């Protein structure tokens, strides 16, 4: 090889291509130069500190004092360059956040519960959409949108429902503790637990999230922190992982909250028009829709840990179901059942707002609807409960912040049908809308936030007794947070909840999922999804939709 006739054309100079995973530069050094000299050149080209450079050639890390010739680095050859990140001695920043650094703790830690809170709120919404695969997608889209739109985030934060939930650290904590994956995460990351156990910190965070100026500041500093993280090799990955770790479990937990399709069973129950449980207090142990976590959580039932948002969400959509489950709408419902996408569309449609407004402005209408509902026809007490509860729930539901989050033009069609149904109802009973008087301002559900914690602990009787008399841990605690808004007769309420749950669960859960999804399981197994447990979980979450289950399984890989 003729070294003096080289690529650069200059005698005594060789050109080496230096490559990092991202960039590539040609570097000229004099013939017979040392690695040190090459690195000095590289330093200029790549604009990186000398100490962080690491040259690799032919599978070897070449040392500074060696000459290029020694390693056979010749003109025209390529060497690899690794730019190490600075301060490698510092413990890995993305994963081992140091809880004892006060300066960092404030923005860093507080950021997390805030995010969780936002997601918690969404988790509630997921309850409404029954976690169909379509809804999942929608929710993901929503979250993305939210993350890219701080304003929306703030709006969400201003939502009384979310606020009240977040202002109650107990609820937040239970919500998180309810999720096995979250629990695991917390067990491994004591900082998070610590953070959750500190109501002061949580409250501060909520304040932060609500206050636009502070929020902005926080966002800014977080931006910085993020970009710092991203510049570390693998840092971006770590962020992604954090996102996955926290968001995904939260979402799937919210999705699994309602293990089966409650709409379906309600409709079938409703159309049959009878329910053996109706009008009787249910004392049978139920399959716990919250995965038994509440049972372990409250060993002594009198501790009255208020239950988490899944319950709130359940309550919300139960009221919702009540509204839609009128005889006049049965067929519509049935139609919708055949098309889960339609339901999620419906729930996210902008038209919903006007409908709900009209409903909440006409409490009588709501009452009437409930009265007409065969599900409740034979149970005046339940009816009354639902009626008093309804306006509040509607108020929550009609919150523009919730609805702003979701706008889907496709839903218009579905909504039109519902509106048609409503006008039909109006025609059939024209007096309905004239009786608008009375009832007065509606007490906001759950917005008595500061008082909530104390009220739970100070009234252990309703939930507490229920828990001791009826061995239904999931249900009883589920009655908790809703019961807060319903302190007038919480016991009746919780028994109503129990009945509702029984109805919802009874239809489908009698069979264990292995039997229900036997053929689907087999299908998955033949496709090479060998983890039976995971398959069952996925099928349960997707209501037996094999395709959706596969998506899910692949995502969770």
């Amino acid at each position, binding site marked *: 090889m003729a070294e003096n006739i080289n690529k650069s054309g200059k005698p005594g100079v060789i050109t080496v291509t230096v490559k990092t995973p991202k960039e590539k530069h040609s570097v000229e050094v004099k013939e017979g130069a040392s690695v040190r000299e090459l690195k000095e050149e590289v330093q200029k080209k790549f604009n990186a500190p000398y100490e962080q450079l690491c040259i690799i050639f032919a*599978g070897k890390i070449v040392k500074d004092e060696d000459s290029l010739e020694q390693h056979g680095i010749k003109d025209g050859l*390529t060497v690899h360059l690794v730019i190490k990140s600075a301060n*490698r001695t510092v413990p890995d920043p993305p994963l081992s956040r140091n809880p004892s650094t006060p300066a960092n703790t404030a923005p860093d830690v507080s950021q997390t519960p805030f995010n969780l809170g936002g997601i918690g709120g969404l988790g509630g919404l997921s309850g409404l959409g029954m976690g169909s695969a379509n809804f999942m997608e929608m929710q993901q889209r929503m979250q993305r949108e939210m993350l890219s739109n701080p304003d929306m985030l703030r709006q969400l934060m201003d939502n009384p429902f979310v606020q009240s939930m977040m202002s109650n650290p107990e609820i937040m904590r239970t919500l998180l503790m309810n999720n096995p994956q979250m629990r695991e*995460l917390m067990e491994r990351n004591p900082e998070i637990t610590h953070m959750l156990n500190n109501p002061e910190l949580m409250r501060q965070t909520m304040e932060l999230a609500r206050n636009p100026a502070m929020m902005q500041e926080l966002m800014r500093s977080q931006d910085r922190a993020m970009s710092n993280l991203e510049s570390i090799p693998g840092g971006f990955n770590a962020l992604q992982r954090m996102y996955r*770790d926290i968001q995904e479990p939260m979402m799937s937990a919210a999705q699994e909250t309602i293990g089966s399709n409650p709409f379906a069973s309600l409709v079938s129950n409703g159309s049959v028009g009878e329910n053996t449980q109706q009008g009787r207090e249910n004392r049978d142990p139920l399959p716990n829709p919250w995965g038994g976590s509440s049972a372990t959580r409250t060993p002594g039932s009198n501790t009255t840990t208020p239950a988490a948002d899944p319950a709130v969400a359940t309550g919300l959509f139960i009221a919702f179901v009540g509204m839609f489950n009128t005889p006049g709408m049965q067929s519509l419902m049935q139609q919708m059942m055949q098309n889960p996408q339609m339901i999620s569309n419906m729930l996210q449609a902008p038209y919903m707002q006007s409908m709900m407004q009209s409903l909440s402005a006409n409490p009588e209408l709501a009452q009437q609807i409930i009265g007409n509902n065969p599900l409740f026809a034979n149970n005046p007490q339940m009816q009354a409960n639902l009626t008093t509860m309804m306006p509040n729930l509607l108020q929550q539901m009609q919150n523009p912040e919730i609805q702003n989050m979701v706008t889907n033009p496709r839903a218009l069609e579905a909504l039109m049908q519902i509106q048609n149904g409503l006008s039909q109802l109006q025609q059939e009973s024209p007096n309905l809308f004239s009786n608008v008087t009375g009832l007065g301002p509606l007490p906001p559900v759950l917005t008595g936030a500061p008082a909530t914690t104390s009220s739970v602990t100070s009234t252990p009787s309703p939930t507490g007794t229920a828990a001791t008399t009826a061995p239904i841990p999931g249900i009883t605690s589920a009655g908790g947070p809703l019961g807060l808004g319903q302190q007038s007769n919480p016991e009746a309420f919780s028994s109503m909840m129990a009945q509702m749950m029984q109805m919802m669960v009874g239809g489908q859960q009698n069979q264990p999922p292995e039997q229900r999804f036997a053929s689907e399981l087999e299908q998955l197994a033949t496709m090479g999804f060998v983890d039976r447990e995971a398959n069952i979980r996925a099928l349960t979450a997707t209501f037996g939709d094999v395709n959706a289950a596969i998506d899910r399984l692949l995502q969770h890989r």
Partner: protein
Amino acid sequence: MAHDQAALLLSRQLKELNKSSVDGFSAGLIDDEDLFKWETVIYGPPETLYEGGMFKAHLLFPKEYPHRPPKMKFVSEMWHPNIDQEGNVCISILHEPGDDKYGYEKAAERWLPVHTVETICISVISMLADPNDESPANVDAAKMWRENYEEFKKRVTRTVRRSVEEL
């Protein structure tokens, strides 16, 4: 002579790799005199847990190359379902040719004489990105990967950090 053929192939590969290096790894001889002992630095593939890592590995070719596969062994500490505790890489293309007695792999998935240092390294990189759960070489890592992904991630992040510190 088989030996000569192997040496010829390997020296040609070495020359090629030096001239136009392939993204994702760097390979050369441990000792310039011995064409059968290679060392490589595998870069952790981007957008995987291994991103940012610089993992040293040795490739030891048998005299019968290319009719028999080399062995690949990571010198850097690794944590991966298909890399055993000693660092030996366990992927089908490095398994002796012919049908697997355990029936796991088809002949086509096993060693073929067309494989080179480059194809092996690329296979290993793709293995890093996408572990094969079915025949784990490191059962603990596979179990962790399956059941406790969090812990798995932490463990891998640690090895990534160490691999860079070692450089």
